[in-house]
């Protein structure tokens, strides 16, 4: 059981700085998810914690011990890999017990712990099989079992679900969550899938280009994105984003979009913007609804627009329409038929719009 601390950690590949002086403290027993697009440095960070990559700058501590100079085997972490990384020449049982065998544990102890892990993951019936005789989901379970057996201080997951099909992925996601409740160990989990991040994490770390964009609980990130990147990255469908300029019209600040549409500045932001400032304003799909099917929010701004495309998903319908020349998406929760090319009145909830400074990308 241990916390993990990263202090000013950097990683270089040649001249490319993959991880740029990141600081992070992972609490004991916390489920922390590192998420971001490919090349953002999340995997490098994880591999530095595991000891599979050298730490070029900064310090990583597991518990109170600095682990920079320690070999992976001395760190008491276990890792689940994207490609399962099972040993193909060993049976499931041997795979599970391998680390204990290397640690020269007694045979009886190994058997007990392997059995225990196999029970937790429901793979007891496969113990005598080779990895090649297992399905993807079963293999991933064996990989997790191999990690559990060691009773490590920290679990590291490197995109463990990305090789599975959608249905299996949902199922395994739940199992990982359950596993965390059962073994209650610190987990660092890397993924590029924001849904995985949202559903699993106690806290999410969003990375981009080697820096941490924001750290927070899933709801924090969803409700209070600190940057434009976080806003568009978290949530599905992605947040609608419109480029605009703040202008002074009759002594009142107002947003003028690049297509020349005027939208009022939300009341709570009016003091934080200034004339001539380039901004992006964003709103989520559920915060712009067709009037006919929804309720008008208190503080609203209305527009008329043609439906480009409607995707009925059962509980909700996604409507693609234009905001000036930008295509946006609206989500409505009433099961009504909407046709393409239909003209609809939309109402935007101004209380739930987000403004971002275009220069810094930071939320206003």
């Amino acid at each position, binding site marked *: 059981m241990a916390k993990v601390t990263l202090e000013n950690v950097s990683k270089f590949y040649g001249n490319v700085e993959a991880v740029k002086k990141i600081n992070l403290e992972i609490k004991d027993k916390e489920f922390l998810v590192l998420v971001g697009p490919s090349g953002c440095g999340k995997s490098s960070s994880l591999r530095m914690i595991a000891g599979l990559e050298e730490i070029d700058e900064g310090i990583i501590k597991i518990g109170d011990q600095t682990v920079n100079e320690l070999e992976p085997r001395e760190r008491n972490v276990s890792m689940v890999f994207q490609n*399962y990384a099972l040993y193909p020449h060993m049976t499931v049982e041997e795979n599970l017990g391998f*680390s204990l065998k290397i640690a020269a544990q007694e045979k009886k102890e190994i058997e007990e712990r392997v059995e225990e892990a196999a029970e937790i993951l429901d793979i007891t019936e496969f113990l005598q099989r080779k990895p090649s005789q297992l399905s993807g989901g079963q293999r991933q379970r064996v990989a997790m079992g191999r990690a559990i057996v060691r009773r490590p201080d920290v679990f590291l997951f490197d995109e463990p679900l990305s090789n599975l099909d959608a249905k299996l992925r949902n199922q395994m996601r739940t199992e990982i969550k359950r596993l965390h409740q059962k073994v209650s160990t610190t987990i660092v989990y890397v993924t590029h899938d924001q849904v995985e991040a949202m559903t699993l994490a106690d806290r999410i770390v969003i990375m981009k280009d080697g820096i941490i964009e924001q750290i927070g609980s899933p709801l924090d990130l969803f409700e209070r994105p600190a940057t434009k990147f976080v806003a568009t990255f978290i949530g599905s469908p992605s947040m609608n984003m419109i480029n605009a300029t703040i202008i002074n019209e009759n002594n009142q600040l107002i947003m003028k979009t690049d297509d020349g549409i005027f939208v009022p500045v939300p009341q709570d932001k009016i003091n934080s913007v200034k004339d001539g400032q380039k901004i992006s304003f964003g709103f989520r799909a559920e915060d712009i609804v067709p009037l006919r099917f929804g309720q008008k929010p208190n503080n609203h701004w209305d527009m008329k627009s043609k439906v480009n495309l409607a995707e009925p998903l059962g509980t909700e319908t996604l409507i693609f329409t234009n905001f000036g020349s930008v295509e946006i998406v609206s989500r409505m929760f009433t099961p009504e038929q909407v046709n393409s090319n239909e003209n609809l009145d939309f109402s935007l909830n101004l209380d739930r719009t987000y403004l971002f400074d275009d220069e810094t990308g930071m939320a206003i």
Partner: protein
Amino acid sequence: MKKFLNGPWVLILPTIIVLTCVVFLPLLISLWTSFTPFKLTKPDTLYRFVGFRNYERLIGDYDFWVAFGRTVLFLTIALNLELVFGLGIALLINKITYAQKTLRTLMMFPMMFSPILVGFQWKYIFNDNIGLLNNFLREFGVINPIPWLVDATLANISIMAAEIWSSTSVFAILLLAGLMGIPKDPIEAAKVDGCNSWQVFKNITLPFLMPFIFIAMTIRSLDVARAYDIVQMMTGGGPAKRTELLWTLISRTGYVDAKMGMANAMSYISIFLSIAFTFFFFYKLMEARKILSYD
């Protein structure tokens, strides 16, 4: 006839004809001659059938079985040493990141020389009067020249040195290819699982490498079992048959003594040696692949 011309047989006919001319007929004829006292100087003897007489004589032929045994020993020692050296070189080259390709090419240089030249070169190195090695040793106070190519043990070791020098790179290259093909994940998993370098090598790298080792063994066992040129150049099987291997013996019997019937009988017995080794290594190869669940 028309049906034949349009059928599949006509398409493989050229292959059948060529194979018959260059493989099957010579095989049949040589098999036949091994049942005759055929001498190159007496063509008539080709048609005198003597049954298994050649084979019967061979069974009691001390010189033949010594050569046979020496070939097996030579093969075993040379293959194992080549494996050890080749594996070592492959592991080292696999480690380096700089100039790897250049080294890989350099490593293949010995393979580019004709075995005859290799034989000449090493004969010169090991020569007891003017050889490089003895000259070099004299600098360190070894005054009496060492008879590298005359003493029974030393001569065999010298030949083996030449053979290993020229062919270790076969192992190195095949094993390097194997090493490069090993997936990175299981190795990393093993490191995290608590293995030190030796344990990673023993438990993960080696099982993955086994198929490549056996492929290299198969290829090289066929090569070494027909070793001829280097030996012929360096010692000619002598002195006094001290370095006689199967093929130097067979060629002398066939071409110098002109006893082609007997030589062919020897060849047929020797072929079984090659077949046995090939079969053994292929069997091991299949097992190694099965362990990795490739099939």
